[in-house]
């Protein structure tokens, strides 16, 4: 299944499927992007990051793709498991002044059915 991020905040998949969560960012000057996972009642948990000099980065079961031309970021989760059910946020680091300020998207809720 595929989500268009802010316009489709819920993604439902079957256990074992691959999931793709999309995110559009707004600032072409942003050079650092992070995906976080947030479970109910918990703080966001770092999943994977990517800097603007790369277009792909892989972790364990997760891949982040960055398309700077269209300012688009995606998170791919392979063989999705029930424990992956959570809200996923992309964050871009902007630098309006001297410091990098993380700006979070609204998030996508991933529901994994056993």
């Amino acid at each position, binding site marked *: 299944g595929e989500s268009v991020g802010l316009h489709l905040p819920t993604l439902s998949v079957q256990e074992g499927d691959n999931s793709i969560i999309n995110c559009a960012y707004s600032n072409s000057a942003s050079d*650092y992007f*992070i995906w*976080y996972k947030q479970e109910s*009642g*918990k*703080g*966001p*948990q*770092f999943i994977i*990051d990517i800097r603007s000099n790369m277009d792909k980065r892989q972790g364990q079961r997760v891949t982040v793709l960055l398309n700077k031309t269209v300012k688009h970021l995606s998170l791919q989760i392979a063989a999705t498991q029930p424990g992956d059910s959570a809200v996923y*946020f992309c*964050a871009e*680091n902007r630098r*309006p*002044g*001297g*410091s*990098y*300020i*993380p*700006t*979070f*998207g*609204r*998030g996508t809720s991933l529901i994994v059915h056993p």
Partner: protein
Amino acid sequence: GAGVSQSPRYKVAKRGQDVALRCDPISGHVSLFWYQQALGQGPEFLTYFQNEAQLDKSGLPSDRFFAERPEGSVSTLKIQRTQQEDSAVYLCASSLEGSNQPQHFGDGTRLSIL
């Protein structure tokens, strides 16, 4: 090792009261951030410290909000004369060095203003 610790986990206050929220970052982490998270939204940046220096407070919504980190470790977010719109989860995060790195979040303080 211990993660970011926030206290209290829940705080209920009457409108007009002052509240203080505490954050214990990961030991040795130089950078500390405060965020406000409304229900169904992503975290919104409030302020950022590097050691004891408050480098950015552009996200604080009003002069009723005040944050400090006097010894470069524990931080306190204080809200004076609370209002109902202050009800939210307040998240603290720390990173090893600088704001352009993954952040480690606490589980937040859920503040309810009656």
